[in-house]
Every structure is written in structure tokens, then in C-alpha cells.
């Protein structure tokens, strides 16, 4: 999928310090709790992949800081919303199905474009609400 250059530049701008150790090349793979895909933690655009690039699901492992792996919950986190930061970058809001905890995460360069778009369009599927808003204009 072609990406805009501006986005590519943004993705290369900084490498965050990551808390997971750099183990063997297989050590950092994980199996997605949502779609069972085997996912490598190495992702274009982020130093630390925290969600599945295919279905966007995640696992509740972090407590306060992304990558701290400090949570004992291990519940499945579902992507529930997209929002745009001040600089325009898309972020995913994840919510844990076990404990309701919320987190926000940057999208990765190889995230499923369709899944992202479906998530972003979710609020607009309520055509009745959209119609009411138009009437209020």
C-alpha cells in the first residue's frame, strides 16, 4: 500500500527507547489473540509493536507506560476508536475486554488499511444521528 511521504518521514523521525530486550529473532514474535496471526514485534514506523497489523487487537500487558509490561491482566484489548492527534497522526484507542482499561497507540506503517478505515468510519454508520446533525446545521 503506497504511503504519503510526509507520513514516511514522520515514521522515521525518532526511535524510542524500548523496554523489551532484543532477544533471538523469533523471541519477539507473538501470536495475535484476535486472529491468531504470528506477528513480529518489529514494525515499520514504531519501535514497539503493540497490536496486530491485521485485526488491530492487542493484549493487556502494559500498565502505565507503553512497553513497561507491568500489567498482570493479559486480557484481550480491542481497537474501539481512531482519533487524530494535533499533528494529524492517527492513534488507535484500545479497550481491555477483561478490565475495561483504555490505552492509545500509534498506528504502524503496515497496519491493515481496511481495518483502520472501518474503525474510523464506525461512528458514521449511525445514519440517523448524522441526519439529525444535518438538521441542526
Amino acid at each position: 500500500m503506497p504511503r504519503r511521504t510526509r507520513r514516511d518521514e514522520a515514521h522515521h523521525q525518532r526511535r524510542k527507547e524500548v523496554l523489551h530486550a532484543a532477544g533471538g529473532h523469533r523471541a519477539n514474535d507473538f501470536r495475535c489473540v484476535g486472529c491468531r496471526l504470528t506477528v513480529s514485534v518489529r514494525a515499520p514506523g514504531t519501535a514497539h509493536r503493540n497490536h496486530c497489523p491485521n485485526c488491530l487487537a492487542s493484549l493487556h500487558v502494559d500498565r502505565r507506560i507503553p512497553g513497561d509490561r507491568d500489567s498482570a491482566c493479559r486480557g484481550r484489548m480491542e481497537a474501539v476508536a481512531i482519533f487524530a492527534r494535533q499533528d494529524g497522526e492517527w492513534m488507535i484507542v484500545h479497550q481491555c475486554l477483561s478490565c475495561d482499561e483504555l490505552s492509545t497507540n500509534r498506528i504502524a506503517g503496515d497496519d491493515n488499511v481496511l481495518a483502520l478505515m472501518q474503525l474510523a468510519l464506525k461512528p458514521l454508520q449511525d445514519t440517523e444521528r448524522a441526519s439529525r446533525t444535518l438538521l441542526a446545521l
Partner: protein
Amino acid sequence: MSNTSNTLKIHTFTCAWCGLTVTRNAADDSVRNHCPSCLHSRHVTDHVEGGPSDCEGRMTPIAIAVLRTGDWMLVHRCVRCDELTSNPVCADDNQLMLMRMAVRPLAQPPFPLEALGSL
């Protein structure tokens, strides 16, 4: 006199962003936690520990999450401590503001939308 102001404090709050005096009880009998006009909120409950939080930071609305029931939830982030919360929208919340939040990501998609043209 002081009785009146105390009663006012219990039943209303002042919006941390636009200054509007907001009644805590919404028309549909639910308890309001955000301003119906600008949708901002204040960090007063600690969701991890439960009970009150002493942060009191302003909470900015960042996203609309849709429940399986189709109901909209408003996701807030505290500008002071980054805490995230999610609360149901109220029937009399500013619909234009809500819709503005819903369409905002679509104004700046991270990929060219033409990429979806072949669906």
C-alpha cells in the same frame, strides 16, 4: 445564602474549558460528567483505584467509541496525567461537536484514500 450556594455546588459544576455552569443530572436522569456544550470534563475519579482522584486536571475529548449496542462513548484524556476515561454521551450533548470529533480523523487519513478505490 450559603445554603443556596452549597446546593448549587452539589447539583452543578463549572466547565473547566468554557466556564458553562452545568447541571449534574441530564434530562434523561443520567449523571453528567462532561460539559454538554464543549464536551470537556475534569479528572475527578480514579478508575484504577476507584473512588475520587485528586488530579482535578482538565480532560479533553479525544475520540468517539461505538458500543456493540450502537451507543456512542466519549473518550477523554487528562491533560495533566494522561489518564483515559470513557463515558456515555448524553442526549443533549452538542451534536455538532460530537460529529466534528467523529469526522476529524477522516480529514487527515494516513494513507491516500484512492488506495481504497478498488474495493
